[in-house]
């Protein structure tokens, strides 16, 4: 046990960040991370309680008190190793996991004050490792058996990493020209630096994982082709790449973007560096982002950084129901994003094919619906118009349809999700597992990682049985 004095402060050690009026003009990371002193001070807030409820709330079961103790004692590499033994992407999780609804939600320090800043400490340990330890872990001895992973997002990378550690020869197929999936095309640079994603992927390559980009399974190669070429098991982590629109008039005017398109242009194609890069984006002066989730916050904050004068979130429920993380909402507000709550678009207006505005209607909250949240009901006669140059639809994504459209044997729900056995994640096709957003619809990075991990275990059990 650590000899240093326990820190009984009721609040987290705050993490330095770029000032709002500076950061809303650049794409550099907003949160700057703890120093060693800050990390140690925060780590000393952990009481090492007997039941450590935080661990069971973590979808990949990181030994949280274990790594925090190592941070407190200054043994940062050991702290990292503890995290990395169950989590293949620590630097990413430390940044984008919704800790407040997972590990931190059960922390007993949270009963009287703020929980231990588990996410910030995880990020600290991972960043310390990336900055100070250059050698890669030894490549595990291979067992000569091959597994294919479809999609290189968080689910696929986790599944690949875990299988590689068990000795399998894993190939990850990616449709885009770079690996990382939503970590590259979706989450913006200022929240998750792309260099970091690259480093984590390099770590998987060092474990022997082969990554093949520019290969669309379902088009370039079929699942059948993969089995024929010698893979014994397949994991599908193809993500939630099908944007939803509202089906209101005017959605096809120029400068109505799906959040997927907008974020892909900005993040993956680096449109914010145009004309240095070749992919353009139109932003205009006034931008509305429709939706209230993390994707909506990301899109709004990107739009602000691209130089829009006024960026607003348009969301049909109230602040309390915003599905985005509290931290993201706060960050967005500080950066000058306007929140038009209890407001729903009914029509996008345009002139000669270009957006000029949007008609919205005020909403009020009625009885709770199936999701348990109070249902938004339009207030009759409350329509009003907003002048706009750009509308970004961030109202959710469905699972990508490519694979199911080209693979008849793969059973899917009518809404598009791949049907799996909840425990093992096995699909209707023998030898094929699936997880992440392709199964659940758009969710979080860590849930996808949890699914990747579960599938890796199922695949291992299956292949051991099969021999």
């Amino acid at each position, binding site marked *: 046990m650590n000899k240093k004095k326990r820190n009984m402060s009721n609040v987290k050690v705050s993490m330095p960040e770029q000032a709002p009026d500076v950061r809303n003009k650049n794409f550099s990371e907003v949160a700057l991370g703890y120093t060693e002193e800050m990390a140690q001070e925060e780590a000393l807030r952990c009481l090492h309680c007997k039941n450590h409820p935080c661990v069971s709330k973590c979808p990949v079961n990181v030994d949280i008190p274990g790594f925090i103790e190592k941070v407190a004692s200054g043994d940062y590499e050991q702290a990292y190793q503890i995290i990395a033994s169950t989590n293949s992407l620590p630097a990413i999780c430390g940044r984008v996991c919704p800790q407040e609804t997972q590990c931190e939600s059960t922390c007993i320090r949270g009963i009287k004050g703020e929980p231990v800043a588990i996410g910030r400490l995880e990020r600290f340990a991972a960043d310390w490792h990336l900055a100070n330890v250059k050698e890669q872990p030894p490549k595990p001895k291979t067992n000569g058996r091959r597994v294919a992973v479809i999609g290189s997002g968080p689910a696929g990378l986790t599944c690949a990493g875990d299988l590689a550690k068990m000795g399998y020869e894993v190939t990850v197929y990616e*449709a*885009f*020209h770079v690996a990382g999936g939503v970590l590259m095309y979706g989450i913006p640079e200022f929240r998750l630096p792309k260099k970091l994603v690259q480093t984590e992927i390099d770590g998987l390559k060092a474990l022997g994982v082969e990554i093949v*980009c*520019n*290969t*669309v399974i379902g*088009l*370039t*190669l079929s699942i059948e082709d993969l089995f024929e070429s010698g893979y014994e098991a397949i994991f599908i982590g193809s993500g939630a*790449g*099908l*944007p939803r*629109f509202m*089906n209101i008039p005017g*959605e*096809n005017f*120029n*400068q109505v*973007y*799906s959040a*997927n*398109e907008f974020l*892909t*242009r900005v993040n993956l*194609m*680096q449109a914010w*560096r*145009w*004309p*240095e*890069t*070749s*992919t*353009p984006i*139109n932003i205009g002066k006034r931008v509305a982002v429709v939706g209230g989730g993390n994707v909506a916050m990301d899109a709004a904050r990107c739009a602000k950084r691209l130089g829009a004068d006024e960026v607003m979130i348009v969301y049909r429920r109230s602040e309390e129901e915003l599905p985005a993380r509290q931290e993201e909402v706060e960050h967005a507000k500080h950066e000058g994003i306007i929140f038009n709550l209890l407001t729903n678009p009914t029509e996008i207006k345009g002139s*000669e*094919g*270009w957006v000029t505005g949007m008609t919205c209607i005020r909403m009020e909250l009625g009885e709770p619906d199936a999701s348990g949240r109070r249902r938004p009901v339009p207030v009759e006669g409350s329509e009003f118009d907003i002048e706009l140059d750009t509308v970004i639809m961030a109202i959710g994504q469905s699972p*990508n*349809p*490519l694979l199911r*459209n080209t693979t008849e044997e793969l059973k899917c729900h009518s809404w598009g999700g791949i049907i799996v056995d909840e425990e093992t994640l096995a699909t209707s096709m023998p030898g094929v597992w699936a997880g992440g957003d392709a199964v659940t619809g758009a969710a979080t990075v860590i849930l996808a990682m949890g699914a990747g991990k579960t599938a890796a275990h199922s695949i291992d059990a299956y292949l051991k049985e099969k021999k």
Partner: protein
Amino acid sequence: MSKILEKRQLTRETVLMKIEAPLIAKKALPGQFIIFRVEEGGERVPLTIAGTDHTEGSVTIIFQMVGKSTMRLGAKETGESIADFVGPFGKPSELDPYKGKNVAVIGGGLGVAIAYPQAAYLHKIGAHVDVIAGYRSIDLIILEDELRSSSDNFYLITDDGSSGRKGFVTDMLKEILEQGKQYDLVIAIGPLVMMRAVAEMTRPYDIETVVSMNTIMVDGTGMCGCCRLTVGGETKFACVDGPDFDAHKVDFEEAIRRSRAYVEQENHDRKSEQERHRCRLTGEVRHE
């Protein structure tokens, strides 16, 4: 990286390239497209496949050097490589049902390059194929021999009359239809205004007409919705629902407007690209 196995200049602006892509060559069918990226930082550009060679493992593309990316692609030589080449995207054209039927394949400008594999496939399966190929001028004619040998009747049209008949492809089509020729299918591939004109011409005759919609795209997998268009009142994604659509149901006005979404940036990029190739002595722009 994908290697350029062969490069041929077809006209001053038009280039044919065979790209090493054995997996795509094996899978690709007429009507499908690839997406290329010339270099790091480059954009993802869709191009309909002009042909494949299974034994060589190559995919043929034909493009006009009219934008930054196609100019940079055109500047590459045989033996060099480009960053990315992925596909085959989109649904293949439904051609097999037209075995033994009368089909008109109409290509306009660069669209001829895409119309050619369709004509060749139809000809091979035993359809009666008339090809109407339209070009701006004699020096822009491509694939004439190939089209002649894969059609029963070949009609060459130029806007200025410098070769073949003077006029537009629709003038020729009008004449043929008025002579009483019955078609089971008309395929039109070319600029949006040309495809719209063909659609309007065949509409009163109630001839099934298919167009290939070459929209702006990013990913090509249905992920972004950038390529959406309205077909029969419904929103469709050209990348996964097309690129072939019923010409009589496509909202061409909207498609034309959407194709101009980035005209300003395209013009900017084209100018700065031309500057890169401008001769400092004569002020002339170098062409490959």
